[in-house]
């Protein structure tokens, strides 16, 4: 893991001092609400439905047990005993007091954490594959690159007041678990045959009101030019991105309006001047950075194949929550935060502490946050899986549902968010209850279900195989259903299948969709593959074909 040096620490400490002073001036009436707003947002502080909300960065989703314990402490001391892990690999606290925010940030700084640029119109927290550095299918570990980009973007003098927020994701694997096609910039590391490392670069993806798949504008960007090229993209965006309407201000709109070719030409023109310049990175920098991320030496003695015997519950968990590691004898374990009844992504302080203890004991003290809102222990010895499972069960961290329908991705929705059109947490719970039978759930197999409470798409509904979006109709909560979204292979945005439904009907709707799939699938075929093969019509037919009285009229 990356460890702060003196510079990193000083920057975070000075940031706390700045923010404390800004907060003091605001509370003293010396700083107007308007002047303060961008400052507090750039420190992760929102004003939400019930109270201020603080979003703390977990850069590229990686943290230490010590850091997670601090997150638990913040939940306990300054909030109501829990936090919400988000689809952008941050954690949010929903009930903090405005005045406490500087103190919370000061405490976080003691464990090398911060809330810098977790919100606001700037470069946001960099995200990556939760299995980065340990996945068996990885070309290379993207984390050193993420950290280099994190540093470059932190308090960037030029890009702190962009037209709109800017999100960067980097992956090191062909199998994209970071949804790079749905970011303002997505980068996929590639190693050429001659050994040279570079990146495919995608621009202009995003979700929200206008979902778009990013365009590939570079097929091999040499790694030393990673930042100079990002600089060129950001500068073009900063200068020419629209600032007149909030929902037209993302880079995806600029790319669309100019066309990907013209946009790329602009970027290349800018890059001509920037490449090889100050932002170029030399090999020594990469080497130094890579040393930070070297895997801890875990003796991989003992078992190298997953256990085949044991309790059915344990075996189910092995099948669902354990992923192949790049080293023999080790495994990657996902701790589910999707226990039915628990809002997806929420973790109590006790659970966070338990996960931290598990990480210390079984995973070299390291934890990841996935954009599916689960926690990941990346370095577990196969020989210790049983012990880990037994310990995790007691903390409701071992629900064997990773990648299944009940592993719902879900935004806070109307229960917390002031932008919501509808609630989403109770919808998630109702669906989880409907699919409570483990064998049936298992039989349905891999299926991503994503729920957002409004068009902003924080719950990523567009890229769920089944997506559910809360919409408002004359003050009532309704839900629109999309099918066919996928973050990868190939990336796709789900299509709306027809008129929206009322909350009470949603579990039934999902059930019907699943029924069609089960009827039509061929042996071993995943939901998304069946859907791609047969199209959405059979699903629509089954849902809307017979007048079942639940349709609304527009």
């Amino acid at each position: 893991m990356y460890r702060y040096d003196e510079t990193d620490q000083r920057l975070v400490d000075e940031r706390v001092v700045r923010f404390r002073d800004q907060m003091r001036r605001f509370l003293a009436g010396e700083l107007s609400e308007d002047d303060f707003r961008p400052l507090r947002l750039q420190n992760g502080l929102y004003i939400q439905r019930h109270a201020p909300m603080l979003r703390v960065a977990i850069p590229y989703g990686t943290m230490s047990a010590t850091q997670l314990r601090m997150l638990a402490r913040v939940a306990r001391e300054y909030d109501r005993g829990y936090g919400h892990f988000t689809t952008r690999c941050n954690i949010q606290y929903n009930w903090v007091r405005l005045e406490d925010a500087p103190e919370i940030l000061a405490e976080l700084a003691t464990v090398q954490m911060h809330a810098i640029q977790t919100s606001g119109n700037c470069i946001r927290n960099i995200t990556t594959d939760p299995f980065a550095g340990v996945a068996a299918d990885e070309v290379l570990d993207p984390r050193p690159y993420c950290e280099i980009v994190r540093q470059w973007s932190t308090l960037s003098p030029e890009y702190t007041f962009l037209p709109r927020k800017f999100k960067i994701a980097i992956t090191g694997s062909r199998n994209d678990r970071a949804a790079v096609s749905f970011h303002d910039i997505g980068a996929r590391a590639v190693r050429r045959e001659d050994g040279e490392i570079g990146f495919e670069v995608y621009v202009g993806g995003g979700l929200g009101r206008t979902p778009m798949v990013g365009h590939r504008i570079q097929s091999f960007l040499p790694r030393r030019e990673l930042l100079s090229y990002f600089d060129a993209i950001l500068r073009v965006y900063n200068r020419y991105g629209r600032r007149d309407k909030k929902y037209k201000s993302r880079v995806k709109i600029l790319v669309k309006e100019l066309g990907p070719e013209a946009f790329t030409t602009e970027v290349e023109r800018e890059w001509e001047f920037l490449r090889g310049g100050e932002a170029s990175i030399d090999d020594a920098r990469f080497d130094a950075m890579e040393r930070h991320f070297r895997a801890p030496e875990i003796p991989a003695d003992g078992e190298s194949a997953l256990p085949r015997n044991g309790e059915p519950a344990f075996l189910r968990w092995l099948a669902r929550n354990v992923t192949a590691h790049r080293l023999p004898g080790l495994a990657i374990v996902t701790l589910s935060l999707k226990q039915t009844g628990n809002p997806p992504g929420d973790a109590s302080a006790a659970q966070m502490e338990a996960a931290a203890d598990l990480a210390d004991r079984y995973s070299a003290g390291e934890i990841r946050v996935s954009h599916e809102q689960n926690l990941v222990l990346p370095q577990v010895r196969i020989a210790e899986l049983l012990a880990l499972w037994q310990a995790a069960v007691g903390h409701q961290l071992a629900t064997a549902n990773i990648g299944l329908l009940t592993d719902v991705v879900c935004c806070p929705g109307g229960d917390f968010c002031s932008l919501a059109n509808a609630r989403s947490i109770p919808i998630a719970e109702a669906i989880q209850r409907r699919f409570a039978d483990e064998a049936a759930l298992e039989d349905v197999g891999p299926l991503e279900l994503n729920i957002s409470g409004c068009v902003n798409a924080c719950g990523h509904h567009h890229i769920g195989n089944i997506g559910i979006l809360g919409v408002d109709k004359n003050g009532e909560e309704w839900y629109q259903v999309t099918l066919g979204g996928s973050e990868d292979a190939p990336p796709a945005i789900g299509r709306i299948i027809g008129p929206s439904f009322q909350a009470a009907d949603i579990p039934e709707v999902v059930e019907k969709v699943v029924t069609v799939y089960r009827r039509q699938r061929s042996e071993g075929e995943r939901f998304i593959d069946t859907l791609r093969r047969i199209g959405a019509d059979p699903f629509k037919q089954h849902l809307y074909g017979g007048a079942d009285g639940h349709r609304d009229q527009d």
Partner: protein
Amino acid sequence: MGTVIKINEGIVEDAAQLVPLARWLEWREAGQVPHPGSGVWLEPDDDFDALLPDLDRLTLIAVNFPVFTDGRGYSVARLLRERHGYRRELRAVGDVLRDQLYFMRRCGFDAFALRADQDAELALRAFDDYSVSYQ
């Protein structure tokens, strides 16, 4: 212009005349030599390519921030300094607040006409907001 903070001079009263880019170009076209104390006022979306031949003889360029959340001026500053080699005074004008000064300076501004309600003495300290930087 009123009160301006200059990196090397502190707080000064300054009466420089700033003319919009279009006017400057008209003058140049007409062969008129502007008053030595005058400078060019750039809006953040001005295409300043036409100004480039003048960079050597200009002594003041001001870049307007219509609202402080409009960050285009930061890019304009970096371009003028780094790509086009402009060396004389580069002044941020408009909605210029204490909390932006550090970033403006790092992009190449060396003079700042603060928004009227800002305390210039306090603002002077803003350049020390951070003692380290990554970029």
